[in-house]
């Protein structure tokens, strides 16, 4: 079997006496959507931080495309093709939607220590940025300042920026967070559209969305992965049901 795109092994992180990530092991194969779910406080956010490089694990390894990521920062991982989106929208409010995406294109298009030529006039950057915006249905809003977009549009832009990086793996941190029912439906539609083209690791709270989108699901409870399987098997898993219904774990 070929090496998985992302392989997390024995990952541990403690805050004081609390093991927030406790021997987490799972892997993500190329293609499709792999979801990580778990009740509040399960350690999803801490896990995302360690995967993207904003938090250093105490132990364990994260291999991505055959390279060890532990010890690398966020920017380095991004250049290797690991694009993350943020649970709390993090766009450049003073930049237009197009320039937000163009910055991401620029990061993988040659050196940025160029001091004279106007970046906004670089066709190659703008064209690719525009493609990313169109992929998420924001093409018509390219010229609008990101700060003036609606919440749902900002969520879309967040996605477009990640797409503009042409990543090997999209790490989406609750892309539906704070979106209303209509926006949620639109975002799910967009994610379904990306499914064939990108490998996605989706950390999400919205169960309906996860079961509609994911090919595989890992369930995180109290920092541990208690199950990784297809959606049907996860739905039927008694340990998962116990965790979500708030009962004491039988195991």
């Amino acid at each position, binding site marked *: 079997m070929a090496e998985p795109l992302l392989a997390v092994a024995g990952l541990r992180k403690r805050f004081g006496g609390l093991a927030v990530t406790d021997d987490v092991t799972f892997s993500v194969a190329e293609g499709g959507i792999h979801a990580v779910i778990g009740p509040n406080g399960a350690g999803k956010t801490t896990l995302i931080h360690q995967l993207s490089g904003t938090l250093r694990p105490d132990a364990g390894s994260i291999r991505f495309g055959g390279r060890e990521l532990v010890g690398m920062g966020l920017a380095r991982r*991004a250049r290797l093709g690991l694009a993350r989106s943020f649970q709390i929208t*993090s766009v450049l409010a003073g930049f237009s939607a197009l320039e937000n995406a163009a910055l991401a294109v620029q990061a993988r298009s040659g050196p940025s220590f160029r001091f004279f*030529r106007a970046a906004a006039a670089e066709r190659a950057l703008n064209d690719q940025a525009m493609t990313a915006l169109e992929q998420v249905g924001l093409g018509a809003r390219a010229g609008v300042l990101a700060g003036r977009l609606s919440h749902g549009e900002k969520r879309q832009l967040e996605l477009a920026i990640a797409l503009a990086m042409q990543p090997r793996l999209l790490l989406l941190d609750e892309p539906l967070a704070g979106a209303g029912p209509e926006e949620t439906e639109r975002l799910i539609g967009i994610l379904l559209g990306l499914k064939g083209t990108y490998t996605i690791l989706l950390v999400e709270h919205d169960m309906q969305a996860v079961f509609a989108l994911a090919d595989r699901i890992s369930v995180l409870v109290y920092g541990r992965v208690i199950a990784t399987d297809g959606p049907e098997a996860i739905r039927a898993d008694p340990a998962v049901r116990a965790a979500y219904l708030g009962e004491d774990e039988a195991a």
Partner: protein
Amino acid sequence: MRAALILLAALAAAPFLGFGEGYSLTLLARVMILAMAAVSLWLLVGGGGMVSLGHAALLGIGAYAVVVLDDARITDAAVVVPVAMGAAGLFALVTGAVAIRTSGVQFIMITLAFGQMAFFTASSLAAYGGDDGYTLYGRTTVLGQRWLEDRLAFHYLCLGLLALTLFGGHVLLGSRFGRVLRAARENPLRAEAVGFRPYPYQLVAYSIAGAVAGLTGVLLANAAEFVAPSYLAWQRSGDLLFMVILGGLGSLQGAVLGAVAFVLLEEWLGHITEHWRLIFGPLLVLSVLFMKGGLVGMLRRG
């Protein structure tokens, strides 16, 4: 950029509109030199989000480069300018390498500390007058010619360099480099998430601003034909920072507007009363409280 262009045009016409005599030209030179310094500081504050309280030290290093070379009887611009820009740029590079690892209040304090370090060093340079300062033998020469002795020529040199600095800053901010710098100011996490570590970009910007400040220091030394440690004092850095904020962080031209408004207001109040600082201080406070976005913001709202 319109307001700044109008100002530049006014400065170009000023000598022919009744501001051509000695005192007016001295004042206008001061306006233009400080505007240039403010533009270089704006690149840090408005462009890179680096609020420095040590910018005067960079100007001072440029001015002291003139002094040291003057003392060695080297006065030609071909040597003086590169040395001044190089020395100030290098100082910015070295101190910036440390300071840029911090941010916010820490960055302000560490640039203040480096600035004061330079100030006390200048004060202790007994060979160059120490606290009392140093009077130049003459102005910097250009290709061996003493053109800068001519007040009108000096006026247009300052104007030309101010215009060049403004234009250069404008180009820089619009370039790939400038885009990364602006992105890192607005949201460093976002810049990193797409693959840019802000540090090297901020450090290069800091060094460029330092070199420009060094060039400004050469003009400063020539304008007064005198250099003193007070040029490097933190109060001067505070004044520059104030000009930048008064003008507004929304656009680079704010630096020019802020500097012009600051110097002219100071001058005008000084004529009205000897207790002008009692009026100047509260005016500055009010301007920060009520002029959101500074002068640039006010112009935009019309």
